[in-house]
């Protein structure tokens, strides 16, 4: 985001401080131009003069650097940096012509001063002009190309950052709307039957909703916080499924502080309730375990019943979870679904170390 802002402020502003690379290119470029012109002069001039060579060094190497450095400043102040090619190109051509003509005039004058007039004929002036056309044209071409490339990279980087944020936000597991409406419906039934329980359910639902909305923003939360919400969720589902839902959780106190993506365990538990309880007439058990396993934390959510091909929305939730883990941890985290002996197990591993760093950062 900040990268984008910086790019916008470029227009009509002073140029950023010149980098070491910029100066190295300036010096190397114009030094090689000086070498080239000097070689040209000494080859074609039967009796080369030291004062002429000195003037070549000063003008072709020194004045040019001053001019182009000033030109850089001009380009920033007049917004040439962000200009489209169609508008920029005529300006570049005009600038090249003007600068080449100007410096040729300067050289003709200097040579008259040095050799007391007549040292420079029209032919020499033309070739000098041609050489500076190449030099300034080349400078502008290289400068604008490198700059355009850098701007492109900066924008691409900003987009990647944005896309990652947007992606995480999009993937931030929302509550399943189907659950939400069923829940509101049960709640209405509960209001007349048991007002105290209904009121507790409103509180739990509010906490759950707030937490799921927050999950769009926070990248990670401590596992303890996530488990609080899982318990709120379970208390809501108990009201809906009565004795059909049995829930057990065992979380090692050593992992309570480990940072996890919000709604990670919640999504898996919701999935387990859906398949292990809601789809089964006799209901079943949902179990959550979390413990340290080597350099990682292992979380497993088990439900009664074999895995079935995921139905639209739930399959979506799991895919989202896998995608979020991939964005946050790369290959260091994993989520697998397996079924054995009448049970479905969702297992997640998250690196202990890097999740702590992420929470700190």
């Amino acid at each position, binding site marked *: 985001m900040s990268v984008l802002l910086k790019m916008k402020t470029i227009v009509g502003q002073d140029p950023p401080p010149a980098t070491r690379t910029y100066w190295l290119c300036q010096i190397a470029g114009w030094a090689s131009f000086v070498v080239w012109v000097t070689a040209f002069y000494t080859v074609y001039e039967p009796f080369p003069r030291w004062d002429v060579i000195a003037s070549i060094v000063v003008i072709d190497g020194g004045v040019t650097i001053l001019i182009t450095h000033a030109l850089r400043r001009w380009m920033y102040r007049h917004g040439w940096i962000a200009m489209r090619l169609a508008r920029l190109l005529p300006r570049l051509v005009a600038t090249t012509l003007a600068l080449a003509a100007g410096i040729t005039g300067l050289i003709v004058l200097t040579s008259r001063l040095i050799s007391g007039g007549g040292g420079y004929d029209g032919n020499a002036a033309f070739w000098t002009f041609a050489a500076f056309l190449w030099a300034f044209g080349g400078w502008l071409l290289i400068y604008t190309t490198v700059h355009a490339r850098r701007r492109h990279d900066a924008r691409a980087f900003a987009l990647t950052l944005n896309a990652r944020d947007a992606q995480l936000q999009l993937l931030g597991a929302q509550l399943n*709307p*189907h*659950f*939400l*409406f*069923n829940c*509101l*419906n*049960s*709640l*209405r*039934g*509960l209001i*007349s*039957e048991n007002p105290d329980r209904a009121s507790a359910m409103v509180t739990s639902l509010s906490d759950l909703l707030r937490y799921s909305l927050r999950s769009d923003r926070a990248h990670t939360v401590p596992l303890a916080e996530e488990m609080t919400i899982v318990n709120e969720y379970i208390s809501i589902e108990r*009201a*809906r*499924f*009565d004795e059909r839902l049995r829930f057990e959780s065992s979380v090692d106190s050593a992992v309570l502080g480990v940072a996890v993506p919000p709604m990670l365990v919640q999504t898996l538990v919701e999935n387990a309730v859906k398949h292990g309880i*809601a*789809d*089964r*007439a006799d209901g079943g058990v949902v179990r959550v375990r979390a413990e340290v396993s080597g350099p990682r934390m292992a979380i497993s959510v088990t439900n009664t019943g074999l895995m079935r091909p995921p139905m639209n929305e739930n399959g979506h939730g799991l895919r989202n979870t896998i995608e979020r883990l991939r964005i946050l941890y790369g290959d260091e985290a994993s989520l697998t679904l397996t079924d054995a002996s009448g049970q479905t197990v969702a297992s997640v591993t998250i690196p202990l170390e890097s999740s702590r760093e992420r929470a700190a950062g």
Partner: protein
Amino acid sequence: MNALLVDDERLARRELRRLLAPHPDVNVAGEAVNVDDAIARLAAASIDVVFLDIQMPGGTGFDVLERVERLPLVVFTTAYDEYAVRAFEVNAFDYLVKPIRPERLAAALDKLRTALADDGPPSASAPSELRRDGPHVRERVFLRDGDRCWIVRIADIALFEVEGNYARAYFSGHRPLIRSSLNDLEARLDPAIFFRASRQHLINLRFVKSVEGAADDTYVVQLRNGSVVPVSRRQSRHLRENLSL
């Protein structure tokens, strides 16, 4: 009217009962908590309307409809968006989204009363339209093709056509493939209405627009939906008797 409430959540059933209480003509004849339960209760009692949840343990509301003999009027109650349900189902009597608004329920009940009065009790209809215990032509059947489902009045189906081991039904622009053989359908439907034109076709005689003679003493029947069905030689004789040509 006799209503069956089908929902796996106790609180949801309780809530629907509470909403129906102000309507004394609605008799809640029973509640069912899952697919098998619902099928059993629909078979046991004469139910006029079923309030059916879509997501249930052991299947969906559609599985219930697919397996019942006699289809009552169906009102889906769903926590989904109504349009999400309409996307894979055509022609349910009504859709109520949960939590249900009392006035929306009242409107649905008004519509139900009208429809039940129009249909009349099954016993009042002409006996000629019945075959053994087969469905009444004014009754509806539930058809399913992949993800799409239809609740359609038998009388509105113009034609069944063989396709492999299954049959394709033609009605009001739809043509789903259904998992019944043509022989099966012929046995279940009223022969005064549905006529086996050939090995391939079972046609609704009420849809016949014209009958033309063809080679070898056979006929070609044109139906109002645009289908043209050739009648086999053996069946042409039956058709002649049937229509007294």
